[in-house]
């Protein structure tokens, strides 16, 4: 934060940092306006203005006759839980669950040239056509992930006619009775290449998540191979764990 910025903005920055660092916990009362004014040697009006804006932004709320409290619980990042078995996961479902509006941009779709790599991971023959869908996933108009998905076309003959900016891929796969239900997953922190950095609007070479998942339907037929590049500022990954023998 630049010292030349207006004081009320600097003060907002102090308070939001303390919320993020959990110095001020969700539901907790923050120092009074008078105390804040004294601590930082600023005018009461400046404090009022900073707090008003943070109330508007949903960080704080006022309780009549009592004080200002940190809003709870505030999720700054979306909670991505891919590994739960037997549940329709995926970004669309995750956004729905957190009550957020999502949107997809289709970058490209169509048949891939014959590939050993994709045939191997999809468990098909090299002669079988692999169909790909490249999408940018947006939440509140911010790109949260770039997803490259490949499916064996033989299970989805009419897939080229579907508009995946309007229809969820998993809903479509479900309608064709091949909804992915079981997953192999790999999560890794990688450097953003030029293309993914551009699409996620992050700097090239900055660290992002890459998730590779292979999805199989209820009969354990592999129906999906996806590489997702995810902006770590907007999504964190949660997993339920269990004891292994």
């Amino acid at each position: 934060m630049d010292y030349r910025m207006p004081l009320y903005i600097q003060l907002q920055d102090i308070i939001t940092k303390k919320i993020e660092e959990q110095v001020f916990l969700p539901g907790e009362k923050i120092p009074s306006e008078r105390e804040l004014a004294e601590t930082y040697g600023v005018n009461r009006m400046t404090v009022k203005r900073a707090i008003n804006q943070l109330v508007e932004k949903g960080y704080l709320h006022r309780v009549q006759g009592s004080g200002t409290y940190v809003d709870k619980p505030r999720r700054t990042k979306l909670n991505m839980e891919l590994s739960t078995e037997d549940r329709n996961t995926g970004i669309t479902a995750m956004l729905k669950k957190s009550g957020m509006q999502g949107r997809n941009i289709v970058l490209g779709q169509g048949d891939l040239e014959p590939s050993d790599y994709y045939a191997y991971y999809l468990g098909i023959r090299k002669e079988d056509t692999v169909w790909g869908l490249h999408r940018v996933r947006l939440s509140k108009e911010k790109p949260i992930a770039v997803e490259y998905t490949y499916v064996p076309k033989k299970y989805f003959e009419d897939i080229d006619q579907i508009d995946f900016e309007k229809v969820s891929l998993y809903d479509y796969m479900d309608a064709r009775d091949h909804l992915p239900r079981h997953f192999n997953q790999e999560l890794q922190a990688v450097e953003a290449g030029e293309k993914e950095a551009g699409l996620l609007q992050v700097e090239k070479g900055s660290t992002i998540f890459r998730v590779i998942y292979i999805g199989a339907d209820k009969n354990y037929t592999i129906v999906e191979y996806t590489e997702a590049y995810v902006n770590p500022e907007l999504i964190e990954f949660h997993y339920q764990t269990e004891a292994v023998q």
Partner: protein
Amino acid sequence: MKLLNKDAFIAREIKYFIMKEKLTEYMKLPAERELAEHFQVQRATVRSALQMLVTEGVIEARKRSGYYIRPQKIEEGLRGISSFSQKALECGKQLSNELLAFERIETDKGLSAKIRQPIGFRMYKITRVRYLKNEGIRLPVALDYSFIPEQIAPKLMKYNLEERSLLEILKAEYQAAPARGEQIVEIVYANQEEAKVLQVSNMTPLVKKTGITYDADEQLIEYIFSIKRKDWVVFKQCNPLIDQKLGGEQYGL
């Protein structure tokens, strides 16, 4: 329009080639020219594909020598609870750990909120560095902070945590067996302590794993956060029934 650029496509095919030829860590890749011939593409395309695999951490370039398979990363489960020493056994690497601190603490506000206990809850705090031996060099790969409630493991300090695994001690000496938990994976940037211990510069991107574990009676057993070098860790969860299907009948790898 083509879905995948030629270099991105070839990068995947090279990954398949590595798997098919069973090239493992430290082994050399064929020369650019040979790969270009093999895949029937321009050398420039192969060069660009190899560069992508370097960025991805699959291979590394050595000056005037060529491309080599990068040493294997430490694989961690996404859903299973296992100890560091167990992971070491699984990936066949020489791993060791160093105890930096073993303290008795009372939880502060921040920690109490995370473990849902009142402030002043008594815990052991164990700070350890995990090392991996790579080409004769002892490389720090993770800085782990474990918090164990004193009530479930009184006198924990008498055990040697450099030689025995913490989970094993809890199980053998205190009959405390983890049953379920939650974990979160995030990207963080090295603070001064992390940078010093992990031998990276300040603000280097690192992977942070936070985990909380309970026993079958929902009693807290361990709270851990682990700061890891991102180039040495990969989180994986495999389903054996899917593994069987990979490669179908044609590939049989």
